């Protein structure tokens, strides 16, 4: 398959490292000069831009956490003038204050470039049509793909997420060759197509780029067989740029990091110590050429390891293994981030629903994430009238919906029916094979 930018993606280690060091130095200079938040942090760590003389020196720099990005909402980390901005995205903010991604013209061009590489890896070129089923809006998914397809010169169907019937209609009428959406939604589409008697083998669709939620190798097998396509895993974060940080090539063996723009490290999440290639730990990324929202040593909380062995595709960039977990208990449900503690907070406000509840996440017949919250009916909430209990269910459902944007099935269960280990209820059961 063609490589979008051979010079960058197949650079020698020497060339790449030279470029990375130059860009790292510039980035540190930029944030030190323009962002008081970073200047304070660097000063506290006793580091100045001059301290960076080789790539290893990056370990001297302090980490940036999601919390830091929130505290500085909305413009606290801006490293350019406001009138240089051309686009802004934010995270959904379901787990707290949203995180802001601000883009200058150059940032947007870079985003287009890394996304063009991503789409190329899936075999997309000029003449291809991309059905973009990621949400358009503040979310980075929709427009990230869009900018990439523009840069590449492909044709775009900007249908956004949802509206399943119409998605299938577009597929039949315009014959897209590439599908981009969440992996679970692709299976949902397959199911809906089957019900309409539509056969994917008769469509020109050849590949899909899937991300924004964790998925497994088993799911890949299922998507590839049901949609009759090759399914590629893509990785990105609002904090760094959105999609385009790392993507799978045709070898489907780890995601190539766009190392000329994103410097990856794997650290021990407890000690912060940098680990060697192949060792499992938390992925930390530094942006190397962002102007609007550069970020230094961002802790992704994602656990993986780096694969430095040469890849058969010819690219020399390092790969990260499929994500192995999180360092926190973040759950991603239908692309919405939430922590169990947030569900707990909602339940806490509703008298009598504590302390015995359980969250069960599964992918049902629809292949979409389904969340069930089991609440034990103790004396305090029991009523001999069904409508009273139904009202309670509805209240829990509605408050979770308005607070977290997730629609959960609330199941009232008998006391002591939730398994306890050493007296403590097991809070989360994730049945999805991620």
């Amino acid at each position: 398959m063609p490589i979008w930018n051979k010079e960058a993606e197949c650079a020698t280690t020497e060339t790449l490292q030279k470029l990375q060091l130059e860009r790292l130095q510039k980035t540190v200079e930029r944030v030190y000069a323009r962002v008081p938040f970073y200047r304070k942090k660097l000063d506290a760590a006793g580091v100045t831009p001059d301290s960076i003389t080789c790539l290893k020196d990056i370990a001297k720099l302090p980490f940036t956490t999601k919390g830091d990005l929130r505290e500085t909402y909305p413009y606290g980390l801006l490293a350019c003038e406001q009138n240089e901005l051309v686009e802004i995205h934010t995270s959904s903010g379901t787990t707290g204050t949203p995180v802001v991604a601000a883009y200058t013209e150059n940032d947007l061009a870079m985003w287009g470039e890394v996304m063009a590489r991503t789409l190329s890896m899936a075999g997309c070129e000029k003449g291809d049509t991309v059905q973009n089923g990621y949400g358009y809006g503040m979310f980075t998914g929709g427009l990230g793909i869009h900018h990439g397809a523009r840069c590449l010169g492909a044709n775009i169907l900007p249908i956004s997420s949802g509206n399943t019937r119409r998605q299938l209609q577009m597929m039949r009428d315009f014959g897209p060759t590439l599908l981009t959406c969440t992996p679970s939604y692709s299976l949902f589409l397959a199911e809906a197509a089957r019900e309409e008697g539509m056969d994917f083998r008769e469509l020109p669709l050849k590949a899909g780029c899937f991300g924004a939620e964790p998925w497994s190798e088993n799911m890949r097998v299922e998507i590839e067989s049901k949609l009759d396509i090759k399914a590629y895993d893509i990785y990105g974060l609002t904090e760094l740029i959105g999609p385009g940080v790392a993507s799978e090539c045709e070898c489907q063996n780890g995601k190539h990091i766009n190392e000329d723009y994103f410097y990856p490290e794997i650290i021990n999440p407890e000690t912060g110590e940098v680990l060697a290639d192949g060792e499992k730990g938390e992925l930390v990324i530094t942006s190397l050429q962002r102007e609007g929202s550069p970020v230094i040593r961002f802790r992704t909380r994602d656990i993986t390891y780096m694969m430095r062995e040469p890849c058969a595709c010819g690219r020399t960039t390092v790969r990260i293994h499929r994500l192995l977990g999180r360092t926190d208990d973040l759950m991603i449900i239908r692309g919405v981030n939430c922590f169990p503690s947030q569900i707990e907070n909602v339940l806490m406000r509703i008298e009598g629903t504590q302390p015995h509840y359980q969250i069960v996440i599964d992918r049902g017949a629809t292949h979409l994430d389904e969340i069930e919250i089991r609440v034990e009916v103790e004396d305090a909430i029991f009523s001999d009238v069904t409508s009273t209990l139904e009202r309670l269910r509805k209240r829990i459902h509605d408050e979770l919906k308005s607070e977290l944007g997730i629609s959960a099935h609330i199941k009232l269960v008998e006391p002591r029916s939730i398994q306890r280990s050493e007296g403590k209820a097991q809070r989360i059961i994730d049945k999805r094979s991620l």
Partner: protein
Amino acid sequence: MIIKQISIFMENTTGRLADVTDLLARAGINLRAISIADTTDFGILRMVADQPEEAVRLLRNAGFTARETDVIGVEVPDHPGELARIMALFRAEGVSIEYLYASLEHKEDKAVIVLKVDDIKAGLAMLEKHGFSTIPSF
């Protein structure tokens, strides 16, 4: 008169009803009326027994959420139109009925209906005023 109904929360699982009836049978508790309200996920078992307090104690010890609920047992003459007459009274007086079910009790030519109303005092007074008798217990 107010009588005590036993209300039990139950998940819709096979055999759960058997657990309850078995428990009560072994304690020699006699059931006089029984009904289940069911939803997709759960049900509420309502029954009237000869030893309500003891029944609730046993059920709670066995891990059920159970409680006593105040209800009315009204004697209804066993011929057409009688229940309709009672319902019309409730409508006229604005007392709402949350649920009702029939009991196994049958005295001469009268049936006993178990009623749960939103205002039990008003319900009782109204029934007595119109000459209906309510039973003190089963």
